């Protein structure tokens, strides 16, 4: 009880509350602008968190990402342009509802079920994390290695692109992580004599470059989307209770699927939304209505992507393994603030963990009034011309990356990663897989090399412990999954002939 009170006091501090409100508004606005994703919103926040207290820093990340994932639904429903990739799964459905004159119902469902998903996901985090922490205490480097590898493999599965290209992107990220002297031998590796590279390639400039600069680069070469027609909205929440009762079962299924996918390292909100939407259609009593403006899939997938956001913190907090790109950023912030991820976090810093849960619940509750305000203001915000927004982003990229280390080298890195991200994206290489590779590189190498030293270069001990054998099987299955899908497709194509 004492820790809970401590946690409440931590969250009630003025700087934390201001940080939550400010980042909520920021997340809603950035997430709703097409082309500016939830990941980009979070990445641009990192330099700011440098200067905040630990709890305030974590609070900004949690709040901004939850808000951005919801508000990505807004341009999806109104303009058929998903604000964030996590909304892409049900954009067509929501837009069809808008055309039927049910924009309020579609946006309200996005908001209401996002908030429910977020809170249920948080409850799962509260219940699951301490239980798994017990188990994690007995993990050795073999388990950590397979867990990290599983995360990387899942990240390649999420990308709806060629699996080979996704694996190549991930390897490229791991190669970037090799740069510097932080390696088992402490020797300068791939530094080409540059002192700036001795410290390695920082994650933040890479993130900002790949997710923000390359997005501006894309805007430079593509035409501006058509402006949003002005409209007045009726009541947003009316009818949501009816939907909740009518689609209770799909809603819970969405929550559970979101939680499961979130807990898997490497798979996050995007995948949760796609899987849940597909599930909803598969198990619906009226699958023929899907795609014509039917709220059922919206309920299930909207709940799912926000639920995964909270449960994605389970592997992040316990093992330092990100559930997706947003938690990858969060892990960086945790390290920066001395809250190093690990099972002992739950025993030694229990009050900080409770504070984190409270922030999650709080963020999802204030999402409802702020979200309604955002929907009403959407026609105003979404009218902001791209030519006014993007230049400011470039300037913030420069200042933000400079702020992380007060050196100009990271500004150069940001530009360089912008080019890398742009070229990769154009040619079908998923950038998120590369980013996870950069984030997890040091950890994968450490657990891999330490395990090899322990086993004297033998591969067998990697499979001998029961938990590591299970994790190894999962990682290898994730690797072979695309081959299976390909073979199934061949068979199905062969049959009618």
């Amino acid at each position: 009880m004492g820790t809970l009170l401590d946690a409440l006091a931590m969250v009630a501090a003025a700087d934390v509350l201001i940080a939550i409100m400010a980042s909520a508004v920021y997340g809603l606005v950035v997430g709703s602008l097409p082309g500016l994703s939830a990941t980009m919103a979070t990445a641009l926040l990192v330099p700011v968190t440098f200067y905040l207290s630990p709890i305030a820093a974590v609070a900004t990340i949690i709040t901004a990402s939850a808000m951005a994932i919801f508000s990505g639904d807004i341009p999806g429903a109104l303009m058929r342009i998903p604000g964030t990739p996590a909304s892409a799964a049900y954009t067509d459905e929501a837009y069809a509802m808008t055309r039927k004159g049910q924009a309020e119902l579609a946006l309200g469902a996005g908001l209401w079920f996002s908030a429910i998903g977020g809170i249920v996901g948080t409850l799962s985090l509260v219940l699951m994390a301490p239980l798994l922490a017990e188990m994690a205490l007995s993990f050795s480097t073999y388990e950590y290695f397979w867990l990290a590898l599983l995360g990387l493999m899942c990240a390649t599965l999420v990308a709806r692109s060629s699996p080979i290209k996704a694996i190549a992107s991930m390897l490229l990220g791991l190669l970037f992580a090799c740069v510097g002297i932080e390696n088992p031998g402490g020797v300068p590796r791939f530094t080409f004599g540059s002192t700036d590279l001795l410290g390695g390639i920082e994650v933040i400039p890479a993130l900002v470059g790949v997710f923000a600069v390359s997005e501006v680069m894309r805007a430079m070469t593509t035409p501006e989307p058509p402006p949003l027609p002005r409209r007045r909205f009726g009541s947003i929440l009316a009818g949501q209770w009816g939907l909740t009762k009518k689609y209770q079962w799909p809603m819970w299924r969405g929550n559970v699927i979101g939680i499961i996918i979130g807990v898997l390292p490497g798979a996050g909100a995007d995948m949760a939304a796609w899987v849940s939407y597909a599930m909803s259609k598969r198990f619906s009593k009226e699958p023929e209505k899907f795609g014509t403006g039917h709220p059922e899939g919206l309920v299930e997938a909207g709940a799912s992507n926000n639920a995964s956001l909270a449960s994605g913190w389970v592997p992040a907090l316990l093992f330092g393994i990100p559930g997706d790109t947003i938690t990858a950023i969060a892990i960086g912030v945790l390290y920066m603030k001395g809250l190093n991820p690990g099972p002992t976090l739950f025993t030694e810093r229990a009050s900080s963990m409770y504070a984190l849960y409270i922030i999650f619940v709080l963020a999802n509750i204030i999402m409802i009034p702020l979200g309604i305000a955002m929907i009403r203001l959407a026609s105003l915000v979404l009218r902001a011309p791209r030519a006014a927004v993007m230049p400011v982003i470039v300037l913030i990229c420069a200042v933000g990356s400079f702020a992380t280390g007060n050196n100009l080298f990271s500004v150069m890195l940001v530009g360089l990663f912008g080019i890398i991200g742009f070229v990769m994206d154009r040619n079908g290489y998923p950038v998120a897989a590369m980013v996870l590779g950069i984030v997890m590189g040091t950890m994968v190498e450490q657990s891999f090399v330490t395990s090899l030293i322990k086993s004297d270069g033998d591969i067998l001990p990697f499979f001998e412990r029961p938990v590591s054998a299970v994790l190894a099987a999962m990682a290898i299955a994730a690797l072979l999954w695309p081959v299976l899908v390909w073979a199934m497709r061949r068979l199905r194509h062969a049959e009618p002939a």
Partner: protein
Amino acid sequence: MHLSDRVTGGFLVLLGAFAFWAGSRLPAVPGQDVGPAVFPMVIGGGLMLCGALIVLGVGRSFEEPDPEPTEAHAGLARWLGKRRVLAALVPPALLLFYVLAADTLGFLLTGFAMVLIAALSLGATLRLAVAMAIAAPPVIHLVFYKLLRVPLPEGLLAAPWA
């Protein structure tokens, strides 16, 4: 910059080969077989394999081509016509400009130039571009310099609150 799979795959093979070769030349930790060389060599091998598979076109059936936009281009992209992909170089060039100019010109002037050029390249009207270029840098300066205490360069034109 649509490159064929042969080009990108070939590049990955070369990069993998380089990582493998450079990794193998790293000094070992005395008295131990496993050192800093292992990981880059494993990655290099993986990259070579993936690159070769990409050159051969394995896995292409999983890709979906992006739909071509139907709206008209604006700003620099329209002016460049068929070579509009070059417009993508504007943001990295602006960042390079920041690196080179920020210390002499100061944050406000550098920011003014960056926002102005970026807005015009995106097809903003001169009025909007100038308005953004005058308004945005001071606001960003205020947030980062005053609230976050980032030492931004003063240069030729200092902000009144600096």
